[in-house]
Each structure stands twice: as C-alpha cells, then as structure tokens.
C-alpha cells in the first residue's frame, strides 16, 4: 500500500496508503476529490475518464495512479484559464448547447483539448481520430464536432466557418 505524491492541475497532493493497482481515475475522484473526471466503463472503451498526462490524453481508468507520479495530471477542472475565463472549448460547448445528460462531456472536452493543443486547424478526419475513443450515449456528436470547429477557429484567430450557432 504505497504513499504517492501527484501533481494535479498544478497542485501537489499527498495520497496515503493506496493499493498499488489503483487506477488514476479513482485516486482523482476519491482521494484528490475532483469529481469532474467520470467513470463510464473501467475498460478504456468510453473515454469518460479522459485526463491529460503531460499534455497527452489518457484513459485514467486504465492508467495506474503510480505511473502518473512525476507527471503533470490535468483534469477538466484544470483546463479553464481561471474561474472567469473558460477554455475556448468550454465556451463553445456552452454556445452550441452540446450536452444532453452531460456525463460524457468532460471526457469529450479533454480529448478535444488535447487535439487542439497540437492542431488548431483540424480536418474532419483529425477530429474523428481524436474523438472516436469517446462515447456519447446521448449521441451529441453533431454538436461536439461543431463546437470543436468553433473553438479551433477562435484559437487560430479565424472566426469563419464555425458551423453556425448552437
């Protein structure tokens, strides 16, 4: 039962006495106490648990917490600039009213954020490739795509071709 130290959203957390096989997901939710990262399948199939490890999207249900030691973990709570300034993807999600139940959306935004951090002008197939690990049981895919385009345009300073409102 090791003790570990994790850096989550720029803050250090001392986590005591966890089982060595504990997935990062449950440490984030139960021990760190950030519940925006969701559990959907536990098997790497749904993407609800997506977080960034050193900027790369991972399924936190399928990554051991111990393997995140020494890396920067970013969760949905850590992507906004601050309380008042959201990430362009978060803004676009609100503008396009993407969520239905909303349960998958943190994971969707984390996958999209990783994509846009490397490619601010993604093609449809870039979007498909980055997003097809994320299930949305409510099937909000049409709006997710539109919101990613809107955010990409905003980030790259190009406000054309955002695919309309909402």
């Amino acid at each position, binding site marked *: *039962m090791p003790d570990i130290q994790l850096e989550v959203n720029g803050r250090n957390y001392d986590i005591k006495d*966890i*089982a060595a*096989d*504990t*997935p990062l997901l*449950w440490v984030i939710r*139960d*021990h*760190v*106490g*950030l*519940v*925006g990262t*969701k*559990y*959907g*399948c*536990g*098997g790497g*199939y*749904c993407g*609800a648990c997506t977080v960034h490890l050193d900027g790369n999207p991972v399924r936190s249900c399928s990554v051991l917490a111990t393997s995140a030691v020494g890396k920067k973990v970013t*969760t*949905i*709570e850590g992507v*906004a600039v601050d309380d008042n300034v*959201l990430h362009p*993807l*978060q803004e676009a*999600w*609100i503008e396009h*009213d*993407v*969520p*239905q*139940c*909303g*349960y998958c*959306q*943190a994971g969707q*935004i984390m996958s999209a954020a990783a994509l846009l951090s490397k490619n601010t002008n993604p093609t449809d197939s870039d979007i*498909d*490739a980055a*997003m*097809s690990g*994320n*299930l*949305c*049981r*409510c*099937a*909000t*895919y*049409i*709006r*997710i*795509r539109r919101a990613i385009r809107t955010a990409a345009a905003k980030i790259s300073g190009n406000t054309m071709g955002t695919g309309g*409102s*909402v």
Partner: protein
Amino acid sequence: MNQTTAQDIINEMENISAGVLDLRVVDRRTFLKLTGITGTGLVLGYTIRDAASPVYAAADNQFTANEFVRVATDGKIYLYSKNPEVGQGIKTAVPMVIAEELDADWADVIVEQAPINEELYGRQSAGGSRSLTTAWDQVRKAGASARAMLISAAAKEWGVPASECRTEASSVFHDASNRRAGYASLAMKAAEEPVPDLDSLPLKKRSEYKLLGKRITGVDNRKIVTGQPLFGIDAVVPGMRYASYLKCPAAGGSVRSANLDEIKALPGVEDAFVIEGNNEPTELMPGIAIIANSTWAAISAKDKLKVDWDETHATRASWSDAQKNAKDAASKGQGEMLHDIGNVDEKFAEAEKSFEAYYEYPFLSHAPLEPQNTTAWVHDGKAEIWSPTQRPAQGAASVAGILGIDEKDVEVHQLRVGGGFGRRLMNDYMCEAAAISERAGVPVKLQWTREDDMAHDFYRVGGFHALKGAIDKEGKLSAWQDHFITFMGPNKKPVSGGDMRASEFPVDFFPNTRVTQTMLPLRVPTGPWRSPRSCGIAFAVQSFISELALEAGRDHVEFLLEMLGEPRWLEEGNIDAMNTGRAARVIKLAAEKAGWGKSMEKGRGLGLAFHFSHAGHFAEVADISVDDNKKLTINKITVAGDVGPIINLSGAENQCQGAVIDALSTTLGLQVSIENGRIQETNFHQYPILRMDKAPDVAVHFIESDARPTGLGEPALPPAAPAICNAIYAASGIRVRELPLTRHGFSV
C-alpha cells in the same frame, strides 16, 4: 468489520476537498425549508427565512411567490425545476415556461432542483416523455401568478390600475406615466399581495411568446463543462464508505456460500456480508456487499469474490431458444385474439395479392453512461438518499418498504442523472444502497461497475411479428394481420415493454384487421426502453408497410397518406391521441425536405417511415448508400416532427438528433444475447454504441402548432429504424427483417 469511528468520520470530513460540494448540507436545508411550507397542497405567498442556506441566503430579501418562483431583491429570480434531469433538457425547458409567463429576463434566472415532494409539486418523475406536458398548465400558472402579484404591487405603489401595467424583462411598466420598476425593487411589496385566483389568470398566447421557441443553452452547462459536482456519482457525504454489490449472473439466484473471510482480509476492505433481499428484481435481489475505504478497493475486491450460487430458482433463459420457439409459434397458428374486425380471411381469399413477412428484434440494454450508483445513509429509523433516478418518489417508497420504515422518513435528493433511457425508472440500486447502509451503520456510496450494469438491466424485450397484408385490385391495402410473439411475465400478461395495443397502427385505418398474440415464457427482467413498445414495433410495422406499398406498385408516401385519410383525431377529445392531419403534414414535410422521389445514383436510396408515439407525430427519411460489401454510408437522416409548440429549439433539436443516432446505433449493431440465463455482453466492446466518426448528419424540422406541447425524449426514435431499413432496400434490394444489421453482414 473495522468499525468506522467518530474520529474516522471527522478525518474524512477534513479530507474532503473544498472542490467537492457537500450535497447533504445544502440539500437538507432546502428540503426542510420547502417541506415546511407543505401540508395542504399548493401554498402560495409564503416567505422563507433561512439565512443559513445558500439558496435562501438573506431570505428577508426574497419574495417567494410559490413553490416554483422566488424573486430576490438583488435581482436574481430563482425558478425550481421539479422533475429529474436525465438529459431530456427538462431543467431548462420547464423554467423557460415559467419565465415566459413571469416575463422574467432569462439572464436573471437561476434554476434550482426542487426537493421531492409530490404533494406539493405533483408528478416528479421522468418517463414517457410526460414531464413537460403534465407540468404545462401548473408552471404557466405559477409564473403568471407571481407576475400578477408583482404587477399589483407596482400598481398600488403608483396608484394606477393594474390593468394599465405591462411587464417585460423582469420589470413592470406603466407607459402612460412613463414609469418602470424592476421586479427586484417590487419583491418585498409583492410578497404582501394576495395570491390571485389561478383559474382566472390570463395566460399568454403562442404569438405573444418572447422566450419560448428560442435556442437556450442548458442551465447546468457551465457546471458540466467545468467538471463541477452535479451527478449522482458525485455525491459525497462526510464519513461515507464505498460499497460494491455482487448478484447472481442469472437473475433469481441466491448466495449459498462465498469466500467472505478472504475478502474481508483484503487491503482497504472493511466488511463483506450477504444480503438476502426480497427477491423483487426492481428492489432488492440477493447478493454480497463489500464495504471498503475507496471505490477501487470495493470494486476490485468484488472481482475476487468466489461465490457458490444457488441457481435452483434462477432463470435459464436463452435467446436462441426463444428465436426457435417464436418461429415455431408463428408457423403453428395465430395465438390468442387481441382484435378482429371485418372479415380478414375473406379479404385475403379474394385479394389481388397477399404478402407476408416475419420480423424480429433483439433484447437491448439501456447502458446509460453513468453506471448505477446511490449514496445512502440509514440511521435512527431514517434514510437519506442521493441518487440519479428517474422516479425519486417511487424510490423512497421502495426504500421505506425494504427498511420497514415510514415513507416520510426517507428523503431522496435528486441529483443530475447521467442518462436514463428508462433504466432509472427502476430503483434497484437505490434499494441496495439503503440496505447496505442499514447493515453497515455508516453512510455508503454504492457503485456499480459497467459489468454490473450490463448484467443486471431491465432489458428492452425482443419481439417477433408474423405480418400479412392483402392488396386489392386498386392497389389498396384491404386486410392486415399481425401475429405478435412476445414474452409472458409472472402475472400471465406480457412482460414490461413487451405488450402491444390491439389498436396498434395501422389497424384503426382498415375495416378488416386482426391482431393476435402468443406469449413465450421468460424470466429475464425487462422494462421500458426509450419509447417503449414503439421502439420495436415501429421497425416491423413501418418496414412492412413499405414492403406492401412496393408489392402494390405504389409510392410509399402516397400509400401512407391514402391510409391516413381525412384529417381527424383518432380519439375525439383526447389531445394526446394521434391526429391524421398532423401525421400527414409531417410525412409530407419529411418527404419534401429529403427530396423524396428524386433520382439517385445506383447503390443509393431513400427510405421513409412514420410513427406516432408519446403524443408526438414523427416522419423520417434516411438517405443511405450501400456498397457491394454491404458497407453503409448514411448520407443524411431527415426528421419532421410535430409536438405542438417548441419550448427550447436548441434542446428540441438535440433530442431529435440524439434519438435518431441512438436508433441508428441500435439498428446497426446492438443486441443483448442471453444464454443459460446469463447476459453475454459485458462492456462496451461487446455493446458497440455508435461513435462520432460514424455519426451522420441529422436535419430536424418542426411543425409548430397551438396544441399543448408534448415531450421529445422518445417519439423521434421509433421511425428511424424502419426508415433506415427501407433505405437499405431502396439502395440495395436487400430487405432486412431481423435486427441488428451487423448480424446480416452490414457495417458502417
């Protein structure tokens, strides 16, 4: 058990990060305060004073008009949403209706989830697409009465007749004297005004709406996209332990013995015990509970359980057997008569052409993305519950029954639900959490795994239809027969979700129709699944109607319109019944928007279907290309719907797109197989819900009318499967009569 001490609980409380909302403290106060104003049904004009609650902070500065509306002197307007939010958008739509009648500026509105109190609020469940339509008059009057009280206060203040005042954007205006007062400034005076007579309150006409029909983003969206605690799974109660629960993989099995001592010795595990349950699948089935100090410890210990199940009374159901038995039943005869009018046999004998086909659809799982969970604290003869549920009040009743306590001593707090689709009309997981907390003596959060959810659903029941149609010399349908083969529940009636109305479409439209039914035995829990009954029946019936149109050499649209006949209500006086005029209009609109009748390249085709359910009229056209390897390209799906006036255009469109893609996902590749009573699919790799790269364009068109608005969570789903299969036929000449499509070599 390593007993949790008071010190442990204090430690836990200190460990809870500030980022996690302490739901208990907030909601208990809300609950107590609001139940404090109940007792005799609707209580109006009561001002709540509780400075300690964030919701009612500085309550001296608020005007509580009624159980839905609270106007604060700081300009904020609190509206209460009474139904569970499961993704259908009700938490935004119903407050929009209140705000419309109140003439509140939407920017001033803060929506709060109402406590569960059906005496005060009436129906507080989410199912059958009924939330909006049943609340429609109630919440319009709530908004209008608060508005009337604000107007009276202003009129008194200004010494002018109330009838000379008007309202707009959270303000009262007296134009003649050029005066304006914001609701905030009138709040405390309005609180002194008498509550107007609800029945004589004027309500707005559709042409007067300013907010309704607009696109409004969901009220929880900011919290959702920033990952704030909101859902059932996010509940944190000080001192809570984590629990998992293992039941027999074949429903009805019980525990003979298990390696409990080994489990209790695992790190993090605090206790493990058997729960006998009451053998009610919707409440508490037998199983083994594990209590641990983290979710992971609880669910990973569950995988190490070795249980000797007593399966004497467990189901041994098999889907492949059911398929065989259904075919047999179809070939042997027609089963029990549900409906028989005219002279069906004669019409078949004299038909120009008769045609028959056998349709089949499988069991399905609901698979909402948030696995079942509930946090429960049972102590001192009381239970407090935090749960993602579609039926909170019914859950409270079940929990009370399980614990043998009074229903009034069970408080259920409704948290946002990560997908419902009908699954969470059942509160089995809530009952389990309560039983586990009672036994453990501490607050527990029960967490199901995805595997638990796939194995213990109330499945959409599969079904079979042996259909037969007669076509006369003029190419008209002259007789119709449907032998429906379904499954029998314990009460000798069809299982939940497996019944069919004797008047199912299109029997009302022909003088010679017969519907018969055979029930096969089944002991697998089933239940309502998004648009129950219709989600299966529409596939069979509306595909077959297209087949008959083709057999008759007729255009499908023309054939359907002819069938519907003159515009009329099918049940006079029932505004939730089908109206043939509304049906015809959506069929024509879908056809027109999709370019029905245009010529298409080889391998591409259009397929149309209509279905009426949940008071919604929907027609859909699929535009699909099929290649030589049966690979499908869904070019577009066009939806035309009539559910009365649209409340929130954004939410309405989202519901329709979601329902259609849900239907495509299901039609294409989803199936729950059952062998020896066990569900074969365990997780999403075997239950491949459609992903973004395969999601097609879905164009949604509404016909708005002055009819009372009805719900949108369900009725857009049923026409999609037959439209897709009709399009596949048009494109490839291959008729699919069994779902899912992947069973027949199709892919996307």
